[in-house]
C-alpha cells in the first residue's frame, strides 16, 4: 500500500545492475575439432562441478545444442561409472 502511493522516484535507471554479462562463446562451436564423447571422462569432467553436477549453460556458455549433447554424454558416462553421480563427503 505504501509503495503504491509513493511520490514519483527520482528518475534512477532501474536496470542498472543488469548488462554486465560478457558474451560467452560455446567451446564446441568455436572449435570444431573438439567432440563430445561419453567415453572421455577427462573432457567431460571439465563441465561438471566438484560434486559431480553438470555445470549450467549460463555459466559454461555452451550453446543449447552442445549443452544437450553434453548432458547426454555426461549421463551416459555416469551410467557406466566413468563419472560419479555424486561424491560422498563421508569416506
Amino acid at each position, binding site marked *: 500500500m505504501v509503495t503504491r502511493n509513493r511520490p514519483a522516484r527520482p528518475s534512477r535507471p532501474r536496470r542498472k545492475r543488469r548488462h554486465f554479462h560478457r558474451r560467452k562463446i560455446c567451446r564446441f562451436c568455436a572449435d570444431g575439432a573438439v567432440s563430445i564423447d561419453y567415453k572421455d571422462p577427462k573432457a567431460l569432467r571439465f563441465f561438471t562441478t566438484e560434486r559431480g553436477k553438470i555445470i549450467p549453460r549460463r555459466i559454461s556458455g555452451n550453446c543449447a545444442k552442445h549443452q544437450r549433447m553434453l548432458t547426454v554424454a555426461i549421463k*551416459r558416462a555416469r*551410467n*557406466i*561409472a566413468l563419472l560419479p553421480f555424486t561424491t560422498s563427503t563421508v569416506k
Partner: protein
Amino acid sequence: MRHYEIIYILKGDLAEEDYRALLEKVGSTVEKAKGQTIKVDEWGLKTLAYPIKKYHKGHYVLMEFCGGPETTRELERQLKLDDRVLKYQTVKISDQADVEALKAAQQETTKKEEEPAAEVEKASDKSGDSKGEEDGDKE
C-alpha cells in the same frame, strides 16, 4: 544392419583365464545372434567412479558390433545372466551401417597402430621380447 557399441564392466578380481573366456563368450554370443563384431577394445582395469556390487575396480571392455535389435537383446540378456559382469551399456551409433566398410576401416586403423609399435619393438630389445610373449599367449 545397425551399428552399436557396448561397454561392459567385469569384476576387478577376475582371473586372467576367466577374463579371456568371458571375452570369447561375449564375442560368440554376438556371432550367434546374427551380429558381426567389428572391434574389441580392452581398456584394462580401471577404478570405478562409484562402487558397483561392492567392487571398486573393474575391467572395462568396449566392443563395436553390427546387428539387428535381436542381437542386442540377446547380448544384454547374456550379460545380465552372468554375475561376473558388473554393468553394461549399449549405444546405437547408426541405423544404417555398412559392415564391410566398417571392418575395412577398422583393419586400417589397427595396421596403423601396429606399425609404430613394431618399430618400437625393434628399437628396444627388452620391450620387444615381452611383447612377443604376449602375442604367443593370445594365439
